[in-house]
């Protein structure tokens, strides 16, 4: 009995979120008056903060529990912080946006909290089944969130496409898991890794099939090259705050799962803290190709776009490409770079989508024409957007640049994939064109009507709250970098 109680204690953050979930159900049922105003959002934010505190407490004692199915190490702690932060900010954004109607706000909070539990499960899973459970939990709820605006055709179509693509992808993945289970006879990462090493390289085609299928499942989650097709349509169709959440939350969870599987199962920890691919499974060149493909697809497709949400959708695909570059050398600096990049990426991406949300609320449309002269009528909004855009492009003084700097550093350090670094650099130049197109219409074009709009304080506080860390992180990033290195140190 004590042992399960100990295990539950380690799951404290998730348990706390579930309790708040139940509280919300009660509120939903018994106090209808509270339903539609800001109360559910406040409750969500409190839930996230509480679980962050619990994560900090739990994080001090890294251990595997529930019989090695779930791991609570530095890696999980980091991702828990990230998920709770993104959930809190997304709910803050959602409750300011007209797209999430007042009466269905409580449902949004419920769904959001469920997804958060699913995400932290994905990050901490070290067992195929638990991973599958986490992924499915996040996916299925995301299908619902994508179609949140029931009467809106675009939102419905987005959820339909997300549903079909997601379903197939996770089906493929579970089939891959079954093959791995067959080959290695176990579901636990550590045993799978042991048997893979024992195989000393005579790895048959079946293993490669399993690997490809698993990769396709995870690639769907982070919208990497072959499985990225759903992202632009779903991001454009779904309501903007939810798209903001999609581009950050589930994507980070996908990366968490991918990193954990890759580093504990398909790679071996070498002496100096780096990793080496299991012989017979030389992943590095494949990852390089995938990363290059994702970058090119993301950047080039965004060039001709006029809908800003779609531009940001393709840009988030491109950023996945940049992040995958870190995996190419499988060494410590690369993975730290990815983790740092994730932090920077989450802040600036939510910010960018937030601005799009605010503009589409005011102007009703999301294409570049809607952005004409916004910079002059709402200078704070314009400046924040400029900061996010330049950070996304990778201009120094902003966190995006530091992310790219670390990623390119790790690639060049290994010396083997210089062509990838060159491609990455060229892609960021190309990305400038479509990013600055947004700024062009915001600042360079004069608005038709001279009406000076006032940015509601609610949004101003949030946006500035995201913009300032983007600059601070760009100028002084040592503490965050040490924090990222610490998370890697305790990866079980």
């Amino acid at each position, binding site marked *: 009995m004590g042992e399960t109680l100990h295990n539950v204690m380690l799951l404290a953050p998730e348990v706390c979120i579930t309790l708040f979930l139940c509280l919300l159900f009660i509120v939903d049922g018994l106090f209808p008056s509270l339903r539609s105003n800001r109360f559910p959002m406040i409750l969500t934010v409190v839930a996230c903060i509480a679980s962050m505190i619990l994560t900090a407490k739990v994080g001090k004692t890294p251990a595997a529990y529930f019989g090695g199915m779930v791991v609570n190490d530095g890696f999980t702690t980091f991702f828990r912080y990230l998920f709770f932060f993104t959930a809190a900010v997304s709910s803050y954004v959602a409750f300011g946006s007209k797209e999430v109607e007042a009466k269905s706000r409580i449902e949004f909070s419920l769904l959001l909290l469920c997804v958060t539990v699913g995400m932290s499960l994905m990050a901490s899973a070290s067992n195929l089944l638990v991973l599958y459970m986490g992924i499915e939990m996040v996916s299925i709820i995301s299908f619902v969130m994508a179609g949140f605006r029931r009467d809106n055709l675009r939102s419905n179509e987005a959820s339909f496409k997300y549903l079909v693509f997601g379903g197939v992808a996770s089906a493929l993945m579970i089939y891959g898991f079954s093959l791995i289970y067959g080959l290695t006879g176990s579901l636990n990462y550590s045993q799978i890794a042991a048997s893979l090493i024992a195989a000393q390289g005579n790895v048959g085609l079946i293993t490669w099939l399993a690997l490809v299928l698993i990769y396709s499942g995870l690639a769907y989650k982070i919208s990497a090259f072959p499985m990225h097709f759903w992202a632009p349509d779903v991001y454009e169709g779904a309501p903007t705050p939810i798209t903001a959440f999609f581009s950050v939350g589930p994507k980070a969870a996908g990366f968490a799962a991918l990193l954990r599987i890759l580093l504990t199962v398909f790679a071996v920890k070498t002496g100096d803290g780096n990793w080496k691919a299991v012989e017979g499974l030389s992943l590095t060149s494949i990852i390089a190709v995938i990363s290059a493909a994702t970058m090119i697809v993301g950047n*080039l*497709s965004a*060039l*001709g776009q006029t809908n800003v949400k779609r531009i940001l959708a393709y840009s988030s695909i491109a950023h996945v490409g940049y992040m995958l570059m870190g995996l190419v050398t499988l060494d410590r600096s690369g993975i730290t770079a990815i983790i740092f990049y994730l932090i920077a990426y989450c802040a600036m991406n939510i910010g960018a989508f937030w601005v799009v949300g605010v503009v589409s609320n005011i102007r009703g449309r999301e294409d570049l024409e809607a952005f004409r002269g916004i910079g002059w009528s709402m200078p704070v909004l314009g400046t924040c957007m400029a900061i996010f855009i330049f950070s996304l492009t990778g201009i120094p003084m902003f966190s995006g640049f530091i992310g790219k700097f670390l990623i390119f550093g790790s690639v060049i350090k290994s010396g083997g994939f210089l062509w990838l670094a060159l491609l990455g650099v060229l892609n960021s130049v190309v990305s400038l064109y479509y990013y600055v197109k947004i700024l062009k219409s915001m600042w360079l074009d004069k608005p038709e009507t001279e009406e000076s709009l006032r940015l509601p304080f609610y949004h101003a506080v949030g946006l500035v709250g995201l913009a300032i860390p983007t600059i601070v992180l760009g100028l002084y990033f040592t503490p965050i970098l040490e924090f990222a290195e610490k998370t890697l140190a305790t990866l079980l």
Partner: protein
Amino acid sequence: MAQQALLIALFPLIAFVIQSLIGKKLPRHGDFISVLAILGSLVVATPIFMKLITEGHVFDSFQVTWMSLRGAEAGRLNSAVTIVIGVLINNLTAIMLLMVTLCAFLIHLFSVGYMHGEERYHLFFAYISLFSAAMLGLVLSDNLLTFFICWELMGLCSYLLIGFYYKKPSAINASIKAFMTTRVGDTLFFMGIAGLYYIYGTSNFMSIYKAIELGTGHGVTILGYPALAFIGFMVLMGTIGKSAQFPLHVWLPDAMEGPTPVSALIHAATMVAAGVFLLIRMFPLLEAAHVVLPVVAYVGAITAFLAALIAIVQVDIKKVLAYSTISQLGYMVMGVGVGAFSAGFMHLITHACFKACLFLCSGSVIHSVHTQDMREMGGLKSKMPITFATMFIATLAISGVPGFSGFVSKDRILGGALAYSMEHQGHYLIPFLGFATAGITAFYMFRMIYMTFFGHARDEHKHHHAHEQPFTMTIPLMVLAALSFAIVFAGPTGIESIDHVMPVKWFDHALEGVQVEMGIAEHLSPEAEAVHHKAHGLALIISLAVAGLGIFLSSITYLKHLLSAEKFKRMAGPLYNLVWNKYFFDEFYLGIFIKKGLLNFNQMLATFDDKVVDRIFVDGWRDIAMVTKNVIGKFDDLVVDRLMVDGTADVMSGGGWVLRQFQTGKVQQYLVLTVMVIIVALFFANLGLK
């Protein structure tokens, strides 16, 4: 003494600064400031000249480091560079200083009267002061760098002064033409200076003379040619540009667009003479690069002869004088070329005086009859006696009539040329052209005198208005005319054999001093001495004969009208046409070189840059992207203007467009693509495993 000499150049410079800043507000528009400044320079220059006359030799110099760049020890690529500039006073400088300040002062006086009532009167004096400062700076400088700086400053002043009447388009074109042609010469001259710094590390005259004496720098080559020859030719190009020698002479006749005092000061006395002065300063180097001197001689001779021919047919009084200036400059260059550089220098001095006088006289004539066309003049002898007298004296001087300064210097040059052709067989063309030019010069000068002063007035109205100029304008004429007598330079009649009774040899002693300094005063061997003596005797006789013939022919055609000029013109036919069109040099330069060659090339290059490099290299990829699109199929959705970015990005967006076509919106097609990629991945994995 050198420090005071610096004042000579500073006075006009200060005058320029004052005049250009507050000239307009001063009483009389500040012309007295410029005149006083140049007078001050004259006052400072005369004691130096007096010292030369009394002691027969004067030498002083002081130097200051202008630029010192730190670097490693000498001889290496990054060795330290120190550019030292200073003032050098030797016999040459003393004489030049006096000549320039005197002429400038007289011309300043003259232009007070001549330019009275002009709209930009104060600016005229500002530019003239700047010009005088630059010319004096050039004369004083002891190295080629400051020499070059003053050289180009003079070019600027000549540009500003020729274009003084800037409302007249012809004046502006002339000023740009002058500036650009001289600039061609200057650029090459600067290459020569760069060459000097390359082999000697300095451009100081004294150190060059010493280095040449020691024979350093002979082995070195620049661009494959022997270094000294290269530098010599570059210096020659500088002279050709500035002293309007063939083929860069086209600007001087057009420079007559400027006011007459300008023509007198700049395009007769001083600036054009600077080119010859440069040759004289660099004579040891030219001599050391023995291949250069003959070229110099030929350039001088050809220029003299061709310019003289053109002068015959000119009807504009100033154009006649302009071509005569080119011709006389050709003489000086020929003098230096054949080795008689002291004769060349003397001719430079004498020419400065009488040509300035001629120009000023023509100025006073133009000022009174308000036309430059000689065909509208005639019979002004009685109306303007002083101008006539001074102009006649100067004409006698230039025509080489004994007893006048022109004869003395021209005879020595021709003697030197003859001696040169005797020593170096086969170069007979030089003396022949020399003597022919002497004759033609006499002919056209007297033609001008007769057409303007003698005969009956062709234009009553102008004749009636003609009047003598006030004293401020006639005094300079008289002074300059006085300087045109032989007595000033060498004996009353100028003929060697006669004057040995009362020889006033200050000029020759001064020039010997200069040769000693330059280290080239080698004593001729006895038989060479004999050849020289014989040559000078022979030259004396021929030059007298030729001058007499010229005067005679001119007087029977233009005074007595026995021979009609028209008949002679028809008889010459095509030759006349050729000469009248100045050998089509202008047409060649302007028509072919500038209009068809340079401007079209620029046009082509500019469109090349805008259309080709900017569009094709950079933007044009869009066209290729467009082609790919049309091949794939008409697609109205993509509007081309959204790709308004340079070509490389257009290719990208074209690529992006292709990629986006896969994004058809149908979920099942996404899945088909995904499955295809997975199959391809498996295929490679399988291949990899083998």
